[in-house]
């Protein structure tokens, strides 16, 4: 009569499809909400999901219902003071007293529809239509990566790779092959023996011979081993070359004394955005962090974003270091190289022409894209002007200025928007 079923183990995301459809349908509104939200967020939770609000009027499902007005008669509970014929002033807003008892029937609430999207959905929306510019399939035929894949079975190998099912299948087959014949003989001999014993005058000699034969057969059968090294099968693995295209991203940042905390914060935010974008869009992107004041230093991600330094500014030191690293580790023939530099624009005046020259001669020929972000509300200084001159002849160089936090995301989109193929 009654079945108890434990459904708790069933798939969880039964509504996932419908949820995805909802998000797709309201993508435009959600996207707007996401880009509005990005400027309000702090650095560390940039990779979390986001709660998004859409004006409720945009997502209503229209239907006919009764409107306000006309004559309505409603019954309410809890009379504590009224007598028939009493007159009550009309309550405002169709509240508890009368009018629409059923508030949901109004459906005209102005509250926004707020909901949370997951981290993946958030990043999808954030980075939609963006791509690393100018990615070339460098050295595609050079087959730089190997992937280990299964490739059938083999008769020898290390014990860790034994395939139990295959081995036992082999064992079973061998045992059948080695014993079927003897089993048949045994059956036959046993039948003969039984017949012999049924006879009125048992032939003792024949009987003894048969018994001997049976014992021998049984011994042979018992000698067939359950498993033999012959049965063993090992999983075989092969290294399969996989064509890949590799990219490396250089992050250069000025951490000198002229960069105040707020400016650094904005630069960090830009790089975190960049980092999320990279680690999301491309499986194979290496990131090199270089920070500099008067000297440049290659650091890890943690140090890049979270450690403090002071001092003057010599931008060319970072460019030199970058060039050295390229020469040492990232052959432009093999790697797609991208660079993004963030600075407040301050530079030691004599250094700026040197920077421009370094860029023009050494770095720009090697890279696919070089983005320079100046984080400063002030007028441009020497570095920007040098770069700007360079930009006229170098399409790979991009300059953008960020004035305040809310500029970061639009600038980021501007720099990395997918180019028409």
């Amino acid at each position, binding site marked *: 009569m009654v079945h108890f079923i434990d459904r708790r183990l069933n798939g969880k995301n039964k509504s996932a499809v419908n949820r995805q459809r*909802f998000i797709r349908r309201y993508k435009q509104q959600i996207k707007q909400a996401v880009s509005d939200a990005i400027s309000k967020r702090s650095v560390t939770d940039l990779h979390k999901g986001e709660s998004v609000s859409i004006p409720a009027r945009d997502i209503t499902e229209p239907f*006919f219902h009764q*409107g306000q007005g006309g004559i309505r008669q409603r019954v309410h509970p809890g009379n504590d003071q009224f007598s028939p014929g009493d007159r009550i002033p009309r309550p405002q807003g169709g509240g508890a007293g009368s009018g629409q008892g059923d508030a949901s029937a109004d459906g005209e609430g102005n509250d926004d529809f707020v909901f949370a999207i997951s981290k993946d959905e958030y990043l999808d929306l954030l980075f939609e239509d963006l791509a690393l510019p100018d990615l070339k399939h460098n050295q595609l035929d050079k087959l730089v990566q190997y992937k280990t894949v299964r490739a059938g079975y083999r008769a020898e190998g290390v014990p860790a790779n034994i395939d139990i099912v295959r081995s036992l299948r082999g064992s079973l087959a061998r045992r059948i092959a080695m014993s079927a014949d003897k089993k048949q003989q045994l059956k036959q001999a046993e039948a003969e023996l039984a017949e012999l014993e049924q006879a009125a005058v048992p032939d003792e000699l024949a009987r003894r011979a048969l018994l001997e034969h049976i014992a021998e057969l049984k011994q042979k059968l018992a000698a067939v081993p359950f498993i033999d090294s012959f049965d063993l099968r090992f999983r075989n693995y092969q290294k399969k070359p996989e064509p890949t295209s590799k990219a490396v991203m250089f992050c250069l940042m000025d951490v000198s004394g002229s960069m105040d905390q707020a400016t650094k914060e904005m630069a960090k935010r830009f790089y975190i955005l960049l980092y999320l974008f990279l680690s999301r869009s491309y499986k194979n992107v290496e990131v090199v962090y270089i920070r500099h004041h008067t000297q440049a230093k290659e650091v890890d991600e943690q140090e890049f974003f979270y450690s403090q330094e002071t001092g003057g500014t010599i931008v060319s030191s970072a460019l030199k270091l970058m060039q050295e690293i390229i020469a040492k580790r990232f052959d432009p023939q093999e790697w797609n190289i991208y660079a993004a530099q963030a600075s407040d624009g301050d530079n030691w005046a004599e250094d700026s022409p040197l920077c421009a020259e370094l860029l023009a001669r050494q770095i720009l020929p090697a890279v696919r894209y070089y983005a320079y972000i100046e984080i400063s509300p002030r007028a441009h200084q020497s570095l920007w002007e040098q770069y700007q001159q360079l930009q006229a002849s170098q399409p790979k160089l991009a300059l953008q200025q960020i004035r305040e936090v809310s500029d970061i995301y639009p600038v980021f989109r501007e720099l990395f928007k997918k180019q028409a193929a």
Partner: protein
Amino acid sequence: MSNSALISRACLPDGPDWTFELLASYQQEIARVAAHYQLDTYPNQIEVITAEQMLDAYSSIGMPIGYHHWSYGKKFIQSEQHYKRGYMGLAYEIVINSDPCIAYLMEENTLPMQALVMAHACYGHNSFFKNNYLFRTWTDASSIIDYLVFAKNYVSKCEEKYGIAEVENFLDSCHALMNYGVDRYKRPQKISMAEEQKRQQQREAFLQSQVNELWRTLPAKASTNPTEARFPAEPQENILYFIEKNAPLLQPWQRELVRIVRKISQYFYPQKQTQVMNEGWATFWHYTLLQHLYAEGKLSDRFMLEVLHSHTNVVLQPPYNSKYYSGINPYALGFAIFSDIRRICENPTAEDKAWFPELAGSDWLQSLHFAMQNFKDESFISQYLSPKVMRDFHLFAVTDNSKESSLEVSAIHNAEGYQQIRQLLSAQYNLSQLEPNIQVQQVNLNTDRALTLRYIPHQEIPLGGAIEQVMRHLHRLWGFEVRLEQLQSDGSVQLLARCPEPA
């Protein structure tokens, strides 16, 4: 020593944690008592689910399967938000009118809650589904799951063939008119899934091959009587049905989608009409069954206190001036009326004998079953709402005439007011007075094939809602111009909306 051993043998373990073995033993006891009270049910299928799965169930109106549509995603996100912020607790159970009757229990419930919920859903609601005349006439419990599977597969097939956006847009339009996809009088057929599929294909072929009245280009015999040309001959209340059969431009698959939406709407129609009765009946029985077990000594005091605590929360009716007031609580009203029927049968007063002469002194169980089987909310209230319940609830009626500046208390719970309150409260559950009365009035066969709907206001209440948008959806379904007109109180007709708007 021996005394305590005796008690522990008689008394079922009282939790608070539940196990499947404990659930089974409680279920067995409840089933025994339910049989004692002649509750006739479908077989039960009890499924334990998590909070997240409960949210899933919410968003698909409690159905275990449904076709994909963004609006269900929206509902899911909405209830998820409300739940996470603590605006709303989840229901302890959801029960589905199917055979076997599927009941979902929340994993978080304590053992007493699970017992309460089993009594409520698996015996209360279940017996209601099986025996109430509306459910017996309008729904077919054995085929609903099959039909939902069919619908889901059909919709995904269409999506593959014609594109998700196309199908979703079309379903949007159907959903906008979902409330007008109901036959109020005709009885739908019971058919199985295999048959449904076969028929679906035949229907497709037939509908397309049929000479459509609307496409007729050869003039029919010149009709001398102009009223004869009217199409449809009578106003049609089931707008989706009318569209499915008559919309000239729909593809076969689109007709089938209209039909699916209409069928599901029809399936839920009885639930809308029996909220008070259904919940009242289930509440009455969880209370009565567990009280019975308690009286037998099967339940511990601790267990019963938790049950009673939940029960009182369920039947709480805040007064009109409370900030928690949101209309009459169907659990409270239904429970009060059913309990009152039992009281009238067992201990009638002079007043009861005057009001319910045939009920007073009769067998309460038979009378109760009769009341459950043969009524819907509207008729149930007008038949069984007693003066005592009106007094207990302190009911009073308020008239709100938008032409006057203040409201008037038209009746209260006194001898002069009983009849009027009973009649007004009954009307409050009359769906045809709650939903705007809109019917297909006419199609211009000979000219532009425009479709005209007519709104007939009840008590001069104007039509609300996003009229323009619904009309656009209707236009998508019909394919030619659509108009909506309103019948005025003086008999004249006023045009409310048309789509497309004349240039």
